């Protein structure tokens, strides 16, 4: 049994050891590559979101002086709201067209189109309604000229952001390169400019043909109402269930079943909770479809196991000596738990709850089944009851809806929506981290 390894000098590295060390280095490299790839994916994901989503926060708008002649808008001259309402958006469109043509003329911009209506593709199809709404709200404007900030169409908006180019519109029926000549000249004259798009954050969803008008605000409210339901139900129920299991339950078959049940529920695919919601809440209990209340109930059932698991961990972390101290001076078990254990575990419980809520906020699949997708959330709910019961969308469902619409302008909105959603999630997670750092106690 003579062997080179053990008899030679330790100063000389033998061939076998060299080979083994090379293997070691390779193995280490694989690990580094794996981490590198993970981080690379993260960077790719985040940079995609930012690069493609940030443009959604910019919007091209035209500043136009629109003449509002009394003879077309209010033929009777009585400013009677009912009469004013009779003039539909079709009555307003020519006014806006004319205003645009006038603006071009005033700035010596060459207008290649004979018919002023041919300039329409530059403007969003929502502008007539925009003007009409303002006139209906302020009938005094009729007869004068007022300045309006009007949305540019999504093609023109995309032209400013580089999404739409002259080449790409060659086969586009809606708009052609001649329009962009006009747009370039208008941008130089300051008639059209891009600015921060508050409407995207506060606005409502729009129909398929008007991506420039779509915003995430209403579905944000829908998500908010859902989160109210989730918080109001899952925190008390989760804490009560955890207290029972951790502090009172004796180790028996029944407790075992509940525990196995909870850990399995935590791993059930979210879509199954959607089926449950559809069958039980909508088909069986006849709760309204697309309502944040139902969404909240489904998400509560989904989040509950997560919250129970983290709450139990927090309760477990409170040392037995605290319980013994309280029991020792004659407090009942219930008093011990509610006066001593629960307050000490509270920071941990809240951290777990926030993380559970963040998970629920980003969840989409179950919402698809209870009808929170496909619904165009065009108005804010009027009142609290309506907020819970009226059909609404939720942020992730809204993003999914936009992703399905085949217009690249809607893809931009979807990425922008993701930025908004991620800002919420990040805030919640940072809050959880701060809570943990601030109140965490090591026993």
């Amino acid at each position: 049994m003579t062997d080179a390894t053990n008899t030679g000098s330790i100063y000389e590295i033998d061939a076998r050891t060299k080979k083994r060390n090379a293997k070691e280095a390779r193995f280490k490299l694989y690990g580094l590559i794996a981490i590198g790839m993970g981080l690379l994916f993260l960077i790719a994901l985040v940079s995609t979101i930012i690069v493609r989503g940030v443009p959604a926060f910019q919007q091209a708008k035209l500043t136009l002086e629109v003449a509002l002649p009394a003879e077309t808008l209010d033929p009777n001259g009585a400013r009677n709201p009912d009469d004013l309402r009779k003039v539909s958006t079709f009555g307003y469109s020519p006014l806006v067209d004319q205003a645009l043509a006038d603006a071009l003329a005033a700035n010596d911009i060459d207008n290649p189109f004979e018919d002023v209506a041919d300039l329409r593709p530059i403007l969003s199809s929502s502008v007539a309604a925009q003007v009409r709404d303002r006139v209906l709200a302020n009938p005094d404007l009729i007869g004068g000229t007022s300045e309006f900030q009007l949305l540019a169409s999504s093609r023109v908006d995309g032209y400013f952001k580089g999404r739409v180019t002259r080449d790409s519109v060659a086969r586009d029926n809606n708009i052609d390169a001649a329009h962009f000549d006009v747009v370039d000249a208008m941008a130089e004259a300051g008639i059209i400019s891009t600015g921060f798009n508050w409407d995207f954050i506060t606005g409502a969803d729009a129909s398929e043909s008007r991506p420039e008008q779509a915003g995430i605000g209403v579905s944000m409210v829908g998500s908010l109402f859902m989160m109210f339901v989730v918080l109001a139900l899952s925190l008390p129920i989760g804490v009560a269930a955890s207290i029972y299991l951790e502090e009172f339950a004796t180790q028996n078959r029944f407790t075992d079943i509940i525990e196995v049940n909870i850990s399995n529920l935590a791993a059930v695919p979210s879509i199954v909770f959607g089926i449950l919601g559809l069958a039980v809440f909508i088909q069986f209990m006849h709760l309204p479809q697309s309502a944040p209340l139902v969404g909240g109930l489904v998400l509560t059932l989904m989040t509950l196991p997560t919250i129970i698991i983290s709450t139990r961990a927090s309760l477990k972390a409170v040392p037995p000596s605290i319980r013994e101290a309280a029991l020792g001076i004659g407090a009942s078990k219930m008093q011990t738990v509610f006066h001593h254990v629960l307050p000490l575990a509270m920071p941990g419980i809240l951290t777990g709850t926030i993380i559970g809520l963040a998970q629920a906020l980003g969840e989409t699949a179950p919402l698809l089944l209870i009808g929170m997708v496909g619904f165009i959330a065009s108005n804010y709910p009027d009142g609290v009851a309506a907020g819970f019961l009226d059909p609404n969308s939720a942020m992730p469902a809204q993003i999914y809806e936009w992703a399905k619409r085949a217009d690249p302008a809607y893809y931009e909105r979807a990425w922008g929506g993701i930025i908004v959603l991620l800002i919420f999630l990040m805030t919640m997670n940072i809050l959880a981290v701060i809570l943990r750092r601030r109140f965490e106690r090591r026993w």
Partner: protein
Amino acid sequence: MMKDNVENKVGVDAMNTKFSAKDVQVYYGDNHAIKDVNVEILDKTVTAFIGPSGCGKSTFLRSLNRMNDTIPICRVEGDILLDGEDINAPQVDPVQLRAKVGMVFQKPNPFPKSIYDNIAYGPRIHGLARNKAELDEIVEKSLRRGAIWDEVKDRLDAPGTGLSGGQQQRLCIARAVATEPEVLLMDEPCSALDPIATAQVEELIDELKQNYSVIIVTHSMQQAARVSQKTAFFHLGNLVEYDDTTTIFTNPRDPRTESYITGRIG
């Protein structure tokens, strides 16, 4: 400080020196765990390190085969020579060093593998066998040296974790022996064992000194007296006294050694 460290009375020429440590310091972060240790450890001899808990004897033992490398905050200074070669020299590969300086730990730590694979692990990674027959031979020889062959020869495929504590520790000793080391380091090898298993392991240590230099860290002074020929007494990171075992236990020179062996400190 220097006064604490005694001159090595045993002549280097009398017997073959295996390890020689010069001014060794070990730090754990800011904690100075081993201070100015100088010692010469002889070949084919059992050397015992004794001393109260936290005196640094295990730390010093672990620096002899650079096991302390696996602890990131640990730093070793001074020279430790194995057969005249500095084990901390930059060109030395700890992997190769540990093949020469085997180690047995406090708690038996068999791998979650079969008994055969536990023993064959070292020879396999160091390429000591050219074929299966040679490997079988090494396994049998090692198990015999570990004095456990008769107990396990019929169940070499059974998991090593299924053995009793004493058997597990002897398995670990056999595993260390299988790589044909020149020195065997034992870190309180009997502390987790019952008296019968302890007796078996001690008997084994006595046999092992025929072939190896054995260094054993122990809490039990009786054990040191039973198995070792040389004893080193550590206290608060210092090597207080190093001498023949009989001298240490019958006629210690340092008052601290005397206090310890008579049970006044420790």
